[in-house]
């Protein structure tokens, strides 16, 4: 099991590492290219020093994930660009500060000697100040390198593939092998880059040809391997980008879509672990071609509707609205619903005689509710609270993957469960009924971007998903990941086979991108 799991993960490495390296190197080189001249300017024009260093410090104090997430609305894009800009900002402070410190730290008598011997200010900079400041500057670049390699793992949620894909999806699917591989790869990359720069520094300081060649060869190797790793994923016009929100079912479905597209001879690329709204915006902007969303989510969060028509009505209205407002095409409902529901451990439900949310309302003031990061700010929560006059003693937010265990272990009394999650059965939880119908239905729907909807071969490849996955099958596929520890790609193959969509010729290979 562990060996197979590791092999599963390692097959993803070239793609993740290639993207991670590209992002890191481009951000770092740009950081150096921007910061060195800026730092030099700042040492020449003293009044600039304080504002420039302060701005860089402030950028640094913003948590990495927040800085990355901020870039999405600011730039109106997902993927490489916002990740690049955020990492560039992140790399600036150590390079700037060390360069300024290094240059200002050159002893005044040495500067006077340079001037007295007749060096121009430019010659003084290049022959005296920069060489003497070099060790401090390089130390700054090394710090920036380690930071950027580490922070680049956070670019996964904004739609840029990185080693963070391992970590984010691994945490969601409780796949410790994936998390471990991601962390180890990022750490190894940081160490290798750091040591290469050090080697380069030693080579220059000690004027050692051997070390120089070694550092040069190492850097060249990394640049070449980045290029080679990028070739298979180089953007062709026909690559289909499949999006996924950060939870197991989404990973499995995205894999299934990608595998199906691959079978049809298309090239598919997954953008996993993206926030709900980021993903929808990316779809309308055409940065993502397709993904699976839920009718209730779009109804409440995108359309901002509070009324609740019957399930089929809601689906029809949503379809028309998406087409009309965003030219987004709903290719079909997959067949299952993944509803939000309030779940309690069965023994607690029996002891307190809880069957519906109405029953729960009486006990709520003594109870703690746990939910995912989004739930308490979503309109569904407001509707639920108002309909049943729910007033809990305490609200806590969890990573979705940890929420179920929190309920089982009694850390919280109630959780906002997803009804197709395999752990509801596994952990012996009971989902309470919603007699007042405060929560909308969440039919899983396959949505296509305007551009994707115009591609006949793409539409025909994905058409087969219409109405073929029932609740039980989806729950079984989710359980394979969450409880049995399979990779989403494997669970996706199971899912395709179970619904009769896998083609025997290529079914075994799947898609690993």
């Amino acid at each position, binding site marked *: 099991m562990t060996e197979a799991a590791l092999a599963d993960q390692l097959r993803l490495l070239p793609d993740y590492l290639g993207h991670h390296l590209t992002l890191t190197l481009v951000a770092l080189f740009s950081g150096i290219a921007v910061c060195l001249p800026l730092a030099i300017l700042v040492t020449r024009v003293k009044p600039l020093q304080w504002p420039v260093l302060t701005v860089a410090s402030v950028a640094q104090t913003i948590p990495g994930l927040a800085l990355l997430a901020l870039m999405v609305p600011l730039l109106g894009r997902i993927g490489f660009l916002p990740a690049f800009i955020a990492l560039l900002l992140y790399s600036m402070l150590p390079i700037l500060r060390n360069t300024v410190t290094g240059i200002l730290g050159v002893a005044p*008598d*040495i500067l*006077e*000697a*340079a*001037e*007295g*011997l*007749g*060096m*121009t200010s430019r*010659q003084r900079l290049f*022959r*005296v100040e920069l*060489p*003497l400041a070099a060790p401090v500057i390089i130390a700054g670049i090394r710090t920036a390198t380690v930071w950027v390699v580490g922070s680049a793992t956070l670019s996964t949620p904004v739609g840029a593939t990185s080693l963070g894909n391992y970590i984010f999806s691994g945490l969601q699917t409780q796949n410790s092998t994936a998390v471990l591989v991601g962390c180890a790869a990022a750490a190894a990359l940081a160490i290798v880059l750091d040591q290469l720069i050090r080697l380069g520094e030693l080579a220059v300081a000690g004027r050692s040809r051997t070390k120089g060649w070694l550092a040069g060869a190492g850097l060249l190797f990394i640049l070449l391997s980045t290029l080679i790793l990028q070739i298979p994923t180089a953007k062709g016009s026909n690559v289909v980008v499949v999006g996924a929100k950060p939870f197991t079912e989404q990973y499995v479905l995205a894999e299934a879509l990608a595998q199906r597209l691959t079978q049809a001879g298309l090239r598919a690329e997954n953008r996993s672990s993206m926030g709900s709204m980021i993903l929808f915006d990316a779809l309308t902007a055409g940065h993502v071609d397709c993904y699976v969303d839920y009718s209730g989510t779009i109804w409440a969060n995108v359309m901002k509707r509070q009324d609740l028509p019957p399930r089929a009505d809601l689906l029809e209205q949503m379809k028309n609205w998406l087409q009309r407002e965003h030219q987004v095409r709903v290719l079909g409902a997959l067949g299952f619903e993944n509803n939000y529901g309030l779940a309690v451990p069965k023994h607690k439900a029996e002891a307190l005689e809880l069957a519906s949310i109405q029953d729960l309302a009486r006990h709520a003031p003594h109870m703690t509710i746990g939910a995912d990061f989004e739930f308490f700010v979503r309109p569904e929560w407001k509707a639920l609270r108002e309909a049943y006059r729910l007033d809990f003693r305490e609200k806590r937010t969890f990573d979705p993957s940890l929420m179920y265990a929190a309920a089982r272990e009694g850390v919280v009394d109630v959780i906002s469960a997803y009804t197709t999650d395999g752990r509801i059965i596994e952990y012996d939880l009971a989902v309470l009924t919603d007699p007042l119908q405060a929560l909308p239905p969440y039919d899983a729907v396959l949505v296509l971007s305007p551009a994707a909807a115009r591609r006949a071969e793409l539409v025909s490849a994905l058409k087969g998903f219409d109405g073929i996955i029932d609740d039980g099958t989806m729950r079984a596929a989710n359980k394979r990941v969450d409880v049995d520890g399979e990779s989403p790609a494997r669970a996706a193959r199971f899912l395709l086979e179970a619904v009769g969509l896998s083609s025997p010729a290529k079914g075994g290979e799947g898609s690993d991108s």
Partner: protein
Amino acid sequence: MICIQQVSKTFDQGRSFAVQEVDLEVGAGEFLVLLGESGCGKTTLLKMINRLVEPSRGRILVEERDVCRVDPVVLRRGIGYVFQGVGLFPHMTVAENVAVVPRLLNWEPSACRDRVDELLRLTGLSPRTHRDRKPHELSGGQRQRVGLARALAARPRIMLMDEPFGALDPMTRDGLQREFKRLQQTLNLTVVMVTHDMTEALLLADRIAVMKQGVLVGTGSPGQVLRNPSHPYIAALMETPRRQADQVESILRSGGEGK
């Protein structure tokens, strides 16, 4: 060679003067020592000669040209300068330090190399053992020799020296002083040297210019300032070396027993 005319320098818009209305001429091949206590303005005056400091008033001619009207970079490359703290570049080898100005002047690499070896020999260093060392691998005396070699590299006719022997132990200082005096005479260098060491001034100078609180109080040959000081301050300054000489002499006469 150098002509200082009514030169003043203020660092605070005229509230006080570091150098005040100094007139001084230095002839070709002359060894002039600027003598005075710390803070008397002698270093400021020296730095105005190659425009490390700009005069507030008056003018300075070097080889008949007003220093304020020539490119300071060109001016400085033509004048040797030995700094108070030596100021060798720590990231460069001895050879690279010495070759700084020839390189700035775009000499051929082979010419630079030959000149480095020649200068190292001239200043009493062995090119083979010292050429590729870094400044931190040298003794204080050796560093000062490299500083001299660097100042002499582009064959300047004028040397400005700011307490060049100040940080050396007495033995090393004595040796270097004598070697430099000989070098100055051989190369017929015009030298302006700043010191607060009266004995050094007396032993090296052709002429001594004494400064006090920014003002030039008098000039004269070592013999003149010792025997006929033109100003009471000069007499007072010369009291110390005179007394020391007398004591040394009496020790010599008494056969080493006196005090």
